[in-house]
């Protein structure tokens, strides 16, 4: 049996989601963004909501998310995605509205917006990519940077007395009455990708039931700014990030 015999529609076991465009992603090899984009596109396709979904992308590496997921997108100012999503969902209660934000965007400059959108219980999905560093600006300290972690602005490692503590914003939003589903996931291997996809699907389904805000943190790797090869970055993430940011559901009601 040669290749020609194998490549037939009936033998197809996996295909790229139709909701993903053919544009080559600008993300670094080993970056988690591409995997999460794929998961979101698959969920949108499987739920058949491409024509009813509006995404709000952040400032950060995912500012170009609109190039890859073939839906209507709004590009927010740094940190303000939850404010845009709030108005969009309230003006279009029947659409699926989600924000896609990094740790600097969501947990630093946009802290007020995310806390209050979650506290109002906006019926939106929040996808929060936490790689503990500013990616696009070149690897500066993020609010979620671990103690001791070296970044461009903590060249000798993050020190609590100088830089404060890493912010567990997901634990914080889980305390708010407005959130219905708060979970922390990862996407570094097939099993975690399956779990993350299940969580994202559940979050999108929640919004139609007017249950409140669904918040999904994805603990992610930024191998370029961590200055590690992709495989090593994932291993470092498992050994260092997961103990401080434990995976699993924080809230589900």
């Amino acid at each position, binding site marked *: 049996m040669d290749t020609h015999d194998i490549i037939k529609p009936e033998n197809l076991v996996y295909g790229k989601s139709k909701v993903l465009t053919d544009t080559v992603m600008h993300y670094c090899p080993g970056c988690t963004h591409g995997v999460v984009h794929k998961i979101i596109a698959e969920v949108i396709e499987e739920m058949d909501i*491409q*024509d*009813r*979904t*509006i995404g*709000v992308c952040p400032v950060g590496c995912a*500012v170009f998310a*609109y190039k890859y997921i*073939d*839906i*209507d*997108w*709004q*590009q*927010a*100012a740094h940190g*303000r995605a939850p*404010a*845009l*999503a*709030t*108005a*969009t969902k*309230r*003006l*279009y209660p029947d*659409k699926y509205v989600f924000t896609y934000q990094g740790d600097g965007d969501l947990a630093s400059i946009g802290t*007020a*917006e995310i*806390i*209050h959108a979650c506290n109002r219980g906006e019926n939106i999905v929040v996808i929060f990519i936490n790689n503990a560093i500013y990616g696009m600006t070149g690897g500066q300290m993020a609010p979620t940077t671990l103690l001791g972690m070296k970044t461009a602005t903590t060249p000798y490692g993050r020190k609590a007395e100088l830089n404060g503590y890493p912010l567990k914003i997901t634990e914080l939003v889980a305390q708010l009455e407005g959130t219905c589903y708060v979970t922390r996931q990862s996407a570094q291997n097939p099993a975690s990708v399956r779990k993350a996809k299940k969580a994202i699907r559940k979050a999108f389904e929640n919004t139609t039931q007017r249950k409140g805000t669904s918040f999904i943190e994805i603990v992610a790797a930024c191998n370029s700014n961590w200055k590690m090869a992709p495989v090593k970055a994932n291993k470092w993430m498992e050994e260092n990030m997961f103990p401080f940011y434990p995976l699993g559901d924080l809230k589900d009601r």
Partner: protein
Amino acid sequence: MAEKLLKKGNEAIALAAIRYGVDGYFGYPITPQSEVMETLMEEMPWETTGMVVLQAESETSSINMLYGGACCGKKVMTSSSSPGISLMCEGISYMAGSELPCLVVNVTRGGPGLGTIQPSQGDYFQAVKGGGHGDYKTIVLAPASVQEMYDFVGTGFDLAFKYRMPAMILSDGAIGQMMEKVELRPQVQRLTDKEIAKKYGDWATTGKSGRKANFISSLALEARDMEQINLRLQSKYRIIEETEVLFEKHLCDDAEYLLVAFGSSARICESTVEMARSKGIRMGLLRPITLFPFPTRIIQAMLPQLKGIMSVELSAGQMVEDIRLAVNGAVPVEFFGKMGGIVFSPEEVLNAFTAKFNL
């Protein structure tokens, strides 16, 4: 018969928003304009027209809610006062860059900083020259009565959607707080998505249905692309300068001297003109209604008959710079103003005028 009510300027803004079929109001309390949101909450338009009214956690958030709502092609507005507008300038710049329509109402107070809650016109530069970062403009309407507060909601939205850019009503604490008779206009129905697309084009993020995906952003990393965006914005502003100037002249036909004033200053200056005329001084008043576009040509056309101009503002002198640019040295241009929430009387304006022109 037309419905007439006795209302505050701020209340008129709220009633106009409902009657004009506005889709969403997002705001944050600040004196002297809090009655706008209070009136909307009392009126509960979500039960009648379906209008969304939401108290945001900050002015930063309310302007970004406008950004989201405007991305959806909806008529969205906010109101605030000077310090709050400063916070909104980032968002206004984004909306100008993304070519999104919206209406921002600034019921100004004295600054800088936290300043005072008394009326001021010290936000002229911020409103007219941009305020936020980058080369952009907003259409700026300056009401001088409660009726104009009401009517400029509709005018502002019409212009904002016509040119796909933010429009601002630059009012002040005096116009916002004073009560006057206001005639309500007939209820305008809110537009459906299809009507919006037909009227203004199919650019909004309404969900990708039967068309290519829409994407709204002010980002263009390539300098050549960003240059094109800037050139497009500037050509739009030139068209607006050619076609959308609004102004009012008071006793200008035979005037040798001209006062230029907007908003509540213009109301005071009307009395000054009467007083000057009773003393035999041929004075007129030009009231710019649009501050951008500025009535540059209107002033230039009057120059042959004029001996002098005085700009009268509740500020250290801001609009006077635009007048001087228009006049370009052809006649003397003087300035009189008060700052920090102090309002001048018609007599004070006249005394300043006679002193400056040795009359």
